[in-house]
């Protein structure tokens, strides 16, 4: 009697503990959601306030006179559409190049055991750590002598190489997961190795390839430091640079800055929503051996 009583009391207390921990977990998640999302929400609200409602003595929490004037102004300003085109072009070119070149390299490292394989893998891991500022200077000189300074191709080439190591590790992880038997079967049916790569391995790893592409795209779309250094004319500036230079040009046009920020993060949020699951898996593989 006494024993079962104490047991049920223990269960009770365990249940209470669990509820207590759950409450804490909910509180943590709620707090973190506010922390993570409030800046975005605030920026979105600022972007639809007229300038006179942003610069006020008494802060306006909910926009009283919502307007899209900042978006319209921004869009009509010369150079803004160009900079988005520049960013889109650079990003697409980077993704295409990395996926093309990176797929071959990752497949090679994933499938073959050749001399120097370990060293090459280590090499790719090491170059990930090089300080970007150190490369910035020689790249500037190099691209200038190649005539690629201040061009979108030069920028894309730089981004391609920088995202190569991490993409390669991610892709390798995804290719490792494709059973070699399937490839062998395709080859028995008369496929060459190249054919098997295109017809069997790549289709099977497509969600992983898509996730890698999204990661590269986000990185290229957001990149600021190299774009600032390696471009200086309107024809090749990407939007993070333009957004930053806007601050210097005018006296903190908060409405415009907020609107520019909102427009520029929209594409990456959409991309991200599509690929977040595979992205998590890929990053895990890239950073640690799971």
């Amino acid at each position, binding site marked *: 009697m006494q024993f079962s009583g104490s047991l049920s009391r223990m269960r009770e207390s365990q249940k209470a503990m669990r509820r207590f921990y759950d409450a804490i977990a909910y509180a943590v998640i709620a707090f973190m959601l506010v922390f993570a999302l409030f800046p975005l929400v605030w920026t979105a609200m600022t972007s639809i306030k007229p300038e006179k409602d942003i610069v006020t003595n008494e802060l306006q929490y909910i926009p009283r006179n919502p307007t899209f004037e900042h978006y319209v102004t921004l869009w009509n300003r010369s150079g803004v559409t160009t900079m988005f085109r520049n960013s889109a072009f650079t990003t697409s070119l980077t993704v295409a190049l990395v996926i093309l070149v990176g797929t071959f*390299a990752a497949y090679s490292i994933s499938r073959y055991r050749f001399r120097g394989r370990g060293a090459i893998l280590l090499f790719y891991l090491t170059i990930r750590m090089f300080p970007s500022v150190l490369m910035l200077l020689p790249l500037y000189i190099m691209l200038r002598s190649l005539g690629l300074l201040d061009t979108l191709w030069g920028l894309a080439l730089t981004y391609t190489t920088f995202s190569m190591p991490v993409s390669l590790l991610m892709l390798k992880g995804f290719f490792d997961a494709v059973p070699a038997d399937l490839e062998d079967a395709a080859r028995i049916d008369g496929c060459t190795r190249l054919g098997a790569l295109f017809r069997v391995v790549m289709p099977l790893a497509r969600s992983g390839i898509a996730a890698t592409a999204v990661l590269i795209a986000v990185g290229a779309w957001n990149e600021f430091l190299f774009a600032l250094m390696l471009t200086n004319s309107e024809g090749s500036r990407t939007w993070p640079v333009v957004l930053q230079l806007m601050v210097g040009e005018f006296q903190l046009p908060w409405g415009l800055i907020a609107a520019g920020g909102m427009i520029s*993060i929209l594409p990456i949020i959409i991309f991200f929503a599509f690929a977040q699951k595979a992205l998590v898996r890929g990053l895990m593989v890239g950073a640690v051996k799971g």
Partner: protein
Amino acid sequence: MNPSSSPSVNNPSDAIKHQVKRFNPFDLLGKLSESRYWAYVLLAPSLLLVLAVIVYPVGYGIFLSFQQFNLMRAALGMKFVGLEQYIELFQEEDFYIIIKNTFTWVVFGACSQFLVGLITALALNRKSIRGGAVARVLLLLPWIIPSVVAGHMWALLLDSRLGVINDILVWLGVLDSYQAWFASAKTAMPAVLLVDLWRGFPFFTLLLYAGMQSIPDELYEAAEVDGATGWQKFIAITLPMLTPVIVAAGILRGIALVNSPDLMIVLTNGGPGLATFTLSLYAFQIAYDNFNFGAAAAVSVIMLMILMVFTMLYFKFSGVTKNT
């Protein structure tokens, strides 16, 4: 019947030969793909790119650090000065402040982001929690926001006149009056660290959560049978199982923190005074504003040496180099 009259129809092997004769580059590639050089052929483009755009520049950068070279006065050319630029750096008093700032920035940044990321991941990892999947995606958003936009967002939030955070803190009674967070030497670094915490914690949450998911349930069940408390389970199971992930994430984030002056460029430009001046910003400014590439390279090489330590720790502890 004359067998030689229509050989290409009657003899199947002749038909194949006929097809091969038409030149097709893909056939050639396909053939090459069966040879033993294929692995190297596949690797070559990526290796060439990396050698040209990363390795050569890094080598050249190290070379530059021993040269006096200003791009604005390129006509003067390069002059070998040996370690002079390094010695000059270490003779500047400001340089020690910059190194100290870099240290603060990296250590406090990585630690705060790890802790907040860990707490968030632990909360998300509870099985009884509902809506976790949605929260997980939403919590990742700050991580994909570009540094420039993040900087501007927080500049507005923390503005000394229009900042909503000031407004809320005054309303709550925490502050007497609005603060100029980025303009005061005491609060500038914590304020920039807060912005980076916002941007950086999701990275830890993401990796730690994924790591927690891969810990087998049986371990926890066995511990429960033994009557372990939640804290004991965390110390004895979760933490040790997560160590490789923690180390990898921490070091990768540390490297990113050493490397990136983005937030400082957007928010403070190193100021007020030298309060938020870090090595990466210093190197960038010498190069971008003064075009003194030689001196900037010397600062970058010092960063490279700091990063090498990180890299070796990463290799040693994360298990990422284990060949599989």
